[in-house]
């Protein structure tokens, strides 16, 4: 199987500042890949390059088999994206949001309608489908945003701190959705500040100062660093960082 993401010496330079410094890794199809790092380590910059939002300075990368330099538009059609900051339009209803985002990805009316009603059913939002998204609790919004991000069955979905501030139960319901998506073969690329969530990933990478310092399954990382949990692994690696976010 060809990997969902291939990264070779991917680098992004801003003037004299090397935000991402020659990172290399592969992500397999259907894998849940945790992309961790301290604030300012370069996670967001790396993620932007992979989503086709900015060009790398050097190095190579393909996402869903497409080149990040030449085939950005094709990449965008093959991925889903969700971040904590921008998720959905608060002043559109649940149904209108789904229709809008489905429309952007060019789903036909028939397919869209089927998927929309199925999604509303799965999320248990039947009574809320006509309500404005702004009136929903945060946890529901996040679950809805994720479902919208995978509405067009992307090969890969990028999640940027999707569960910030959400209560423990909703957070787990959110991860159920992630597992289900991975089970359907969607590759999940996720960043988080919750270290227990790092454990849910198949493999995680930890970025420090623009470089990937560690990459492996959570259990193997814990063994290697003689750590009781991921929090400890992360702390051992990230405290060596010299730079912080600006």
């Amino acid at each position: 199987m060809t990997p969902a993401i291939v990264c070779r010496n991917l680098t992004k330079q801003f003037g004299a500042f090397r935000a991402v410094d020659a990172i290399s890794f592969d992500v397999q199809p259907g894998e849940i890949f945790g992309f961790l790092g301290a604030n300012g380590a370069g996670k967001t910059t790396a993620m932007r390059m992979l989503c086709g939002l900015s060009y790398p300075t050097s190095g190579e990368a393909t996402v869903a088999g497409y080149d990040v330099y030449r085939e950005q538009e094709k990449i965008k059609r093959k991925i889903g994206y969700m971040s904590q900051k921008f998720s959905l339009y608060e002043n559109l209803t649940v149904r209108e949001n789904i229709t809008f985002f489905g429309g952007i990805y060019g789903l036909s009316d028939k397919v869209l309608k089927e998927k929309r009603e199925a999604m509303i059913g799965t999320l248990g939002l039947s009574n809320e489908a006509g309500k404005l998204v702004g009136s929903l609790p945060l946890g529901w919004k996040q679950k809805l945003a994720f479902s919208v991000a995978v509405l067009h069955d992307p090969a890969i979905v990028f999640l940027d701190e999707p569960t910030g501030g959400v209560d423990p139960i909703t957070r787990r319901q959110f991860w159920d959705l992630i597992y289900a998506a991975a089970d359907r073969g969607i590759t999940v690329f996720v960043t988080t500040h919750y270290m227990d969530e790092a454990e849910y990933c198949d493999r995680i990478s930890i970025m420090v100062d623009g470089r990937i310092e560690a990459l492996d399954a959570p259990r193997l990382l814990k063994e290697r660093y003689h750590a009781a949990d991921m929090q400890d692994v992360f702390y051992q690696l990230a405290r060596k960082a010299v730079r912080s976010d600006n």
Partner: protein
Amino acid sequence: MIRVEQLSKTYGDVRAVREVSFAVERGELFGLIGPDGAGKTSLIRILTTLLRADSGTATVGGYDVVTDYRAIRNTVGYMPGRFSLYQDLSIEENLHFFATLFGTTVRENYAVIRPIYEQIEPFKKRRAGQLSGGMKQKLALCCALVHQPTVLFLDEPTTGVDVVSRKEFWDMLGLLKSQGMTILVSTPYMDEASLCDRIALIQEGKILSVDTPAAIPGQYRGILLAVRADEIYALLKDLRALPWLKSCYAFGESIHCTVGQPADAARLREALTGHSNLEVKEIPASIEDCFIQLMNP
């Protein structure tokens, strides 16, 4: 130092705070723990005299939050959730401004802020907007401390901050506590609970439980089992199919299940024989386990 009785606050039809009562002793590091929208910010704003409660009473340092609001404003330190300093002023200018605002000088209370200020002093000419997240946080803490408050209120100081900065921040709070300061801090991170003297778990405006972090797991009802296997998602699906489990959810590298009696562990093992590298063991409940249980009574 802080006494809250039957406090309620409603916005429109949202009941942000519902009949909340608790007390914080002098010199205590008290944690208000709950997710976004639980009512933590409203509660802190009522205590810092920024909001008026609809009903109930509260005192800070013996002063009533409504009638003696001016006295409270003289004695408390407050760090709001967002970074709330002037981005276009330098570190020095911000600190000096807030010191003067509270009718004091930086020099007068230097001893209080020194351990924290020393870490950012080399950059004192730099504008606050150009500082890193961790440094902004330290500056904000300095500004909240510059008038030597008797009570310090911190609203989600560690939200969105990485593990390293979070640890540093809690170290600083420990230092302040050792100097005798009373601190009330709110956080959505359950793992920070153990760093507090006492905690209140809060959800949808209601307090679920108030106790020391060590005592709260003792209140857990049932036996908690951590279950592990190679195929975690398949394991979770199989576990969900067992109707006799009281609860079952992913937790870090394993899945936590609640059962009624010790014999149920063996019963569980039997039901999951198909899984490779299966591991079932009884574990003590964490704060987060308790929180989840309290959310679903």
